[in-house]
């Protein structure tokens, strides 16, 4: 059985948890006490990941760290339709990779702000918040134009990709770090679309949305 070294309140661990659920992959969660125990930095955990980070997965002896790398692996291994990580279309694939890189930015700003506020990390909170707003402005405009083209997701495909999963937690939890989404109406609509995907699971801080009256068949 696939194992995910996980912490419930971590935005980065939520990413693989979400995709595992959406792909319906059976798995075991191995809780790592990130806060306050800092178990991810313990000698025992460094044997699994010398960098002392979560998440990490272990799949039949194969160990992989870093949230976005794990998303790419899971989509490649467990999505026979090849829509979550669309290797058949080089331009689309390039777009997905570019948004994964963008999500490193949201993790370093929006999610870092949340680490300051909720978990006592001593980053420059003001810089994190300002950086997150810069990125959210770009993403909101991008998603607004996607809507104008009749498309729902971050990458220009009919189906969601790992880029949506990589961005969702940083965006959906941003207000815990003091980053309001009032100025980003397209971003607010996109998070609701992600939440309505089959297999979506929430985490503390992600509030449920209303089901649509006539769910698309």
């Amino acid at each position, binding site marked *: 059985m696939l194992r995910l070294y996980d912490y419930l309140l971590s935005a980065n661990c939520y990413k693989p948890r979400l995709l595992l659920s959406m792909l319906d992959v059976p798995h075991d969660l191995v809780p790592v006490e990130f806060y306050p125990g800092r178990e991810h930095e313990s000698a025992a955990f460094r044997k699994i990941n010398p960098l002392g980070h979560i998440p990490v997965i272990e799949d039949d002896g194969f160990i992989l760290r870093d949230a976005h790398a794990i998303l790419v692996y899971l989509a490649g291994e467990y999505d026979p339709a090849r829509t979550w990580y669309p290797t058949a279309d080089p331009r689309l694939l390039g777009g997905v990779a570019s948004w994964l890189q963008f999500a490193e930015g949201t993790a370093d700003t929006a999610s870092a702000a949340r680490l300051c506020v909720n978990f006592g990390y001593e980053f420059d909170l003001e810089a994190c918040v300002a950086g997150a707003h810069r990125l959210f402005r770009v993403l909101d*405009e991008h998603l*607004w*134009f996607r809507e*104008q*083209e009749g498309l729902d997701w971050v990458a220009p495909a009919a189906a969601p990709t790992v880029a949506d999963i990589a961005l969702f937690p940083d965006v959906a939890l941003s207000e815990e770090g003091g980053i309001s*989404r*009032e*100025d980003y*109406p397209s971003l*607010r*609509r996109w998070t*609701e679309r992600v939440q309505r995907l089959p297999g979506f699971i929430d985490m503390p801080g992600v*509030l*449920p*949305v*209303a*089901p*649509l*009256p006539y769910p698309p068949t």
Partner: protein
Amino acid sequence: MTAPDPASLLHPVAAGADLMPRHVVRSRLLGRRLAIWKADDGFVNVWEDRCIHRGMRLSAGVNDGAELVCQYHGWRYSNRNGNCVYIPAHPGEAPAGGLRVATFACAEKYGLVWSGGSPDAEPPSIPALEGGEVLVLRSLPVNAPAALVLEGLAGYSFRPTAALGTDTPITTSADAGNPHSVTVTATTTGAESSVVFFIQPAEAGRCVIRPVLSAAPAPEERLATLRHHARALEELRAQLEDSSPAEAAVALPLATLEPLRSGGTAGAAGGRHPQLQVRVARKWVCAEGIAAFDLAPVAGELPSFQPGAHLDVHLPNGLVRQYSLTNGPDLTGVYRIGVKLVPEGGGGSRCMHQSVHEGDALDISTPRNNFTLRRDAARTLLIAGGIGITPLLAMAQTLARQGLTWELHYFAQSDDHVAFDEMLAPLAEGVTTYCGLSPQETGAELTRITRHYGPMQHAYLCGPGPMIDTARSIAAEAGWPTEAVHFEYFKNESARDDSSAFDVTLARRDQTLRIGAGMSLLNGLRNAGIDLPSSCEQGACGTCIATVLGGEPDHQDVYLNDSERAAANRMLTCVSRAKSGQLVLDL
């Protein structure tokens, strides 16, 4: 020229396209946070973004299409008037009438949603946008004061769609026709185009630019046009934010917006006074001997109601009658009631059938609910006899909309007596009708229907007296506790005895009244100036209930269940009296 008070005008607060189904838009105007949502009936609600319970933002809530649900403790607010209609922590009680979120005026024009100002204020009229199809461009929030932004927008430069990708010379002119918008017109050989920039003053130092293009381009040029303006506006924003003072030195007048109050004149809370005037918008025969009425407001929005609610209708012949609302949460804008003709009755139903017509005005009370529906049951059984379908129909629609588990069993004299077909049809999966059964057959069906009781199940009964009596005793035998069986009688058919005389002490007033034989406690209280609300005045509806602090009540109503009677801590003042010589009431 003195600028008009910004708080008295309508301002844009969202784009019409932002109001997606089952979505709640978060916005802000003059420092006031707004939650904006469109119900399934198309009504756009602009509310203060604050649950009246614990202050949670309603824009984080769930729009279920007819009610907005707060994420914190699940308080539900109804479409149109913002009244709280359900509090999960008090599942068996109707929320008090005053529990209501602040609502604001709303209008839609030029593809934008407008709010603020007085209820009769109108969005501005801009000549450039009249008489043609417009295109709403992407709005842009700016961290700069509105005055500075308006000034900067006058210098906006763009190319008309027909001249995109060319380098023909462009001339632009700006016209600040009103203090809250700027019209910029670009002209080139053979092409002219205007953009109107409306400003949403969000708060001091921050506003939202909402641009509208005068002539919608052809579909194939739409995206290019949108991108052209988005880029130009983005550039302008960068300049504005750079030159904006770091501290918001130009403060906007953060005036408080007055909530829109509506729903007719509020009458006195007590007594049986009409509180609202309505118009009979539609009257039709919905089954053999049953007339249905849609009652529409004369002005404003009707006060909200919960499933199980009834209202008093003050008839032209002077009688006052109670009718249950059949409305589910989706039927807004009217109260729908059903009236069964009872030829040998007191004249109420005859008057409704024969003398009340479409277009007539009627005086009514606001809806009251003493037959409240819990929305936390594992399974809800609804059992209707005849015209008793009316409150249960409202309940079935509410439970169906929320995806809860329910079944409706409807006993009628014949197929022709089955009322409200068109409202039952969408509920068909949960509805079973029984026509023309004898009392024995009805009893057998009731035994079958109630045979499986489980924890957190609730049953609601409404119908003729003998049927409710039978259903209650059958349910009790099947193990249903009295708390789980809720009922509403049409009328109190039990023999009543008002020969007793007693004293009643009003604990909060330190006053004692003598209630003599032949006088009701309710009238005794009214004679002493205590105007208790009442409705049916025969012990069936529960409106005139009072809390008993001492003494033994002589219950003569059909509203309280057996355990409530035994508890002896509440009584209906219209028919019930005292077994002891003295009663103490919490009045």
